[in-house]
């Protein structure tokens, strides 16, 4: 696996706290471009918080404190003057629960581009096809594009949410336990589409199990109680962990 020399995202000494509890402590991590980086560990480890920080979704949460820097292409995303909406168009996010918005399949996929000002019908059809195809959903929904999105199955809804993020042609795709509510077949489909997507995108995923972490990782980072315990390229974290706590977790001694 050859990764680009310059990491896509650099997280530098980030500490983050909600009202009273620290969620992340001094986390430093480089995320390589065109690869799948897995953030895993037991619940409450700060993985989701880190994802939300990367596209600034926690901006509206009150009573939080943050120190450290997050760089995207070597630019501080929290610097004054950075447009949050532009950032979020470059960094897409998919959530744990499939969340079709009110409206049809077509409306869901085109939500983002339309908000960004897309009017051209031909271009819209193009985006619709490309995004659904990349999310491995096109074949299943091509005849029901104008049906309500909530009529799709759970697995289809989650891939629809991935397609919705892809419609904005982001550079980075953040996925927070995207398969936690899905059956094994749908999970396999989502994972398969991730392998296709990493050619064009930088992917950061919080998997819903250690097994999934091991399946999809090009690069893995283990989080415990807000601390980054260790991170390794490829699958070394699962075969030859350096730290005792990592080994205990991946071999199932706790978690």
């Amino acid at each position, binding site marked *: 696996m050859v990764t680009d020399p310059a990491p896509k995202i650099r997280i530098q000494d980030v500490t983050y706290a909600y009202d009273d509890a620290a969620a992340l402590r001094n986390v430093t991590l480089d995320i390589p471009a065109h690869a799948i980086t897995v953030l895993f560990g037991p619940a409450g480890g700060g993985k989701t918080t880190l994802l939300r920080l990367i596209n600034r979704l926690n901006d509206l949460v009150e009573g939080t404190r943050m120190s450290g820097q997050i760089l995207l292409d070597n630019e501080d995303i929290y610097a004054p003057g950075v447009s949050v*909406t532009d950032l*979020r168009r470059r960094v897409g*996010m998919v959530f744990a629960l499939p*969340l079709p918005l*009110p409206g049809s399949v077509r409306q869901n996929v085109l*939500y983002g581009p339309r*908000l960004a000002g897309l009017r051209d019908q031909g271009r819209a059809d193009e985006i619709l096809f490309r995004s659904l195809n990349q999310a491995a959903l096109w074949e299943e929904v091509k005849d029901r594009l104008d049906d309500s999105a*909530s009529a799709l199955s759970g697995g289809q809804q989650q891939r629809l949410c991935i397609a919705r*993020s892809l419609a904005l042609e982001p550079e980075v795709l953040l996925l927070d336990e995207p398969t936690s509510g899905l059956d094994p077949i749908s999970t396999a489909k989502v994972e398969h589409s991730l392998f296709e997507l990493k050619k064009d995108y930088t992917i950061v995923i919080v998997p819903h199990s250690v097994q999934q972490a091991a399946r999809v990782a090009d690069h893995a980072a283990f989080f415990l109680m807000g601390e980054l315990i260790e991170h390794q390229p490829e699958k070394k974290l699962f075969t030859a962990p350096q730290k005792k706590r990592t080994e205990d977790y991946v071999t199932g001694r706790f978690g």
Partner: protein
Amino acid sequence: MKNKNHLRWSEFLIQTLIRVLGFSSIGFVLLIFLFLLREGIPVFFQVSPTNLFGTRWYPTFDLFGTLPLILGSVLVTVTAIVIAVPLGVTTAVFVREVAPNWAREVLKPMIEVLAGIPSVVLGFFGMTLLAPFVRETLGFPTGLTAFTGALILAYMALPTIISVAEDALDAVPKSYRDAGLAMGATQWQTIWRVVVPGARSGIVTAVMLGMGRAIGETMAVMMVTGNAARMPLSLDSIFRPARTMTATIAAEMGEVAQGSVHYHALFGIGILLFLLTFIINLAAATTIFKKRRRGGLR
């Protein structure tokens, strides 16, 4: 053994009591409805339909045209709703989505207190302050107009609309907001294109409840609309006095001879009012139901 018996008895007593209370409240509503029908139905036989749905309401000359009253009610209510809905829904959005936490905690109870102001107080306020204000700013011969009534009614419906719509917005999962924001929507776009559509059924309910409050309101309306039973047909009718169905019943019921045609006519108006509210509620219920079945709503 004795103790067990005792338990069984108290259980039986409580159950019976609750059952009697429950059925009696249904029974009372039913009795009121039957009474309304008994007193109101005769007018439909005593007065010819052309008279009853005519344009002139002069009970002393045996003219019982209810049309100006129906249109008066509709005019005042619709105007009130046109004023109150945009104001109420945007206030709800502000309180729920934009205002900081501390402001929300102050505003919400304050709005709910507003709902408790007795309507006669609002009517008095409308008569002494709002009516002269309307007369002077708009330059009409009188400030007691349908418009003044609509303003007071809008004010009365606002707390209901705000409060219910705010609850509906609150029920939209936080994840919807995240999903909107994560797509690069601004806060405003997220509110308008994701959160508000998500709360649509609740907002429709809010509007309907507000409308119910407005159309049934009597006291405040009677005090400020001028009570002239004229057909509101010209464009400026909104700025002329009008008379509603409720005000007519309240104003005339006290001095009518019991059992007379006029007496039955007032109950007849009550039946019409009931039908009107029933139709509105039915329409609201079916819209909500249809939307929900299509799956477009939560």
